[in-house]
């Protein structure tokens, strides 16, 4: 029990630090891609910027609008934060020699657990937007809910292809199944679908209709300030990290070294792959503009879902034939 607690604490610290610097590097990368230096005033190369941001968020006034439903309004950020962190209970970052994973909990049904938790994550957005008692957050929440439900379907289907190839729902098992060939190769279509739906699930550009600043002020978190806003903020970045980890685990071979290049320990490769995926996220944000809402829905239901089903059928046929 104690060891689980210690593990959790360490992991929590790592995730939060990663979040802080992910945010800093996102701003840096966006800056570079937009011909700016990015944050560079706080500390050398702006490295203390996350600390400054954290201090600012903590010190900001905590506002609750008059029209808000106070209970739900306060509950929503915690749901977001809780579900974002809960996933890390089962994510393995590497494996011991005996095959047991470096994770808090070794769960056989890891991938299902993950889907279950992420499906609850929507509540943070929809309840928070509704409980703000104001128009823009409500619109953001309704959009967000619809978007996440629509894209969750395709994402789940893209998982199933991998599950069928691996023959297990254990994340460790899936990584072990990729020792020779990453699922990126046989599941190329699944990977593309996953990447698109993952971006939509985390509400990041070009799928950030939930908080579309140009139309909805701040979307579902318009009325939030201080640490409550911070909770949503942290949840978004932690979800990004989660999505990157899952991409690594399911499609990029996890901690397996590519082409037998065992220069780095497994965890090193894992971090590199996750980092590369995170960079891709930021690159995406710097490159693509936001979707129009009806196009988003059309794309989700009329393109992604059939493609995912096709992928599933093809994979099933392939598995059945072999």
């Amino acid at each position, binding site marked *: 029990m104690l060891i689980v607690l210690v593990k959790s604490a360490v992991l929590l610290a790592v995730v939060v630090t990663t979040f802080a610097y992910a945010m800093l590097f996102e701003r840096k990368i966006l800056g*570079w*891609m*937009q*011909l700016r*230096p990015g944050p560079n005033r706080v500390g050398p190369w702006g490295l203390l910027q996350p600390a400054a941001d954290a201090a600012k968020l903590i010190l900001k006034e905590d506002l609750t609008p008059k029209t808000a439903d106070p209970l739900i309004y306060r509950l929503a950020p915690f749901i977001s934060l809780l579900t974002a962190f809960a996933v890390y209970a089962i994510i393995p970052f590497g494996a011991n020699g005996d095959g047991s994973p470096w994770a808090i909990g070794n769960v056989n049904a890891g991938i299902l657990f993950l889907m279950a938790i992420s499906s609850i994550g929507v509540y943070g957005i929809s309840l928070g937007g509704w409980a703000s008692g104001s128009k823009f957050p409500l619109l953001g929440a309704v959009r967000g809910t619809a978007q996440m439900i629509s894209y969750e379907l395709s994402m789940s289907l893209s998982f199933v292809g991998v599950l069928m190839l691996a023959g297990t729902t254990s994340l460790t098992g899936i990584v072990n199944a990729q020792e020779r060939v990453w699922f990126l190769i046989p599941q190329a279509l699944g990977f593309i679908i996953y990447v698109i739906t993952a971006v939509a699930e985390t509400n990041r550009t070009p799928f950030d209709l939930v908080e579309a600043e140009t139309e909805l002020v701040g979307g579902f978190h318009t009325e939030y300030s201080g640490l409550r806003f911070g909770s949503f903020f942290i949840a978004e970045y932690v979800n990004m990290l989660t999505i990157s980890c899952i991409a690594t685990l399911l499609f990029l071979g996890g901690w397996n070294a590519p082409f037998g290049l065992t220069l780095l320990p497994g965890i090193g490769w894992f971090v590199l792959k996750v980092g590369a995926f995170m960079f891709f996220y930021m*690159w995406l944000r*710097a*490159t*693509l503009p936001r979707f129009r809402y009806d196009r988003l829905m059309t794309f989700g239901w009329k393109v992604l879902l059939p493609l995912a089903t096709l992928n599933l059928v093809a994979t099933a046929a392939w598995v059945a034939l072999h």
Partner: protein
Amino acid sequence: MRKHLFNVGAILQGFGITFKYMFVKRPTIEYPSIKKQHAPRFHGLHELRRYADGKERCIGCELCSSACPANAITVIGAENAPDARVSPGERHAASYEIDELRCIFCGLCEEACPTDAIVLTPRFEMADYRRGAFVYSKDRLLVPSDAGVGTPPDERPNGIPADLGRVAEVKSTTNVDRGYSATHRGEVLKTERKGLAG
């Protein structure tokens, strides 16, 4: 379907552009430590001047406020007390307020002023923590009585106030020849138009 495939190509091209720009030299001037050189007649914070005898030039005629396209100036006139004149003549400004948040620094107030009372200085650093602090009233706009009479813009040496700090060597960002000059977009537009015409 073919159209969509082309779009994928365009998206990939976009990724290429953003990636390429990561390694382009940035023209950013690190502002608080290095400052950009002003144009000689830069329009900054306002100043109300005085006559050599210390009397205010402003007569409260509100021509600046009626010339102001942003409605940023509010003047309320009053009659001069004969024994304690504020300005020469019968009328003076009892209250003179400029909302610097509304001001667009066009300088039309300067043009409108019949007594050359209001001038725009090159000062532009007006940050504050409270919104209300940006409504500059007469006590902050008027040249202090011990600091001379104020200078109209065309009498300034090079347009660079001495107390502005280290000035950047870059004169302007528009003529840096790196492919990202301000005219870059214009070139693109021109090409596109040509394409349309052809």
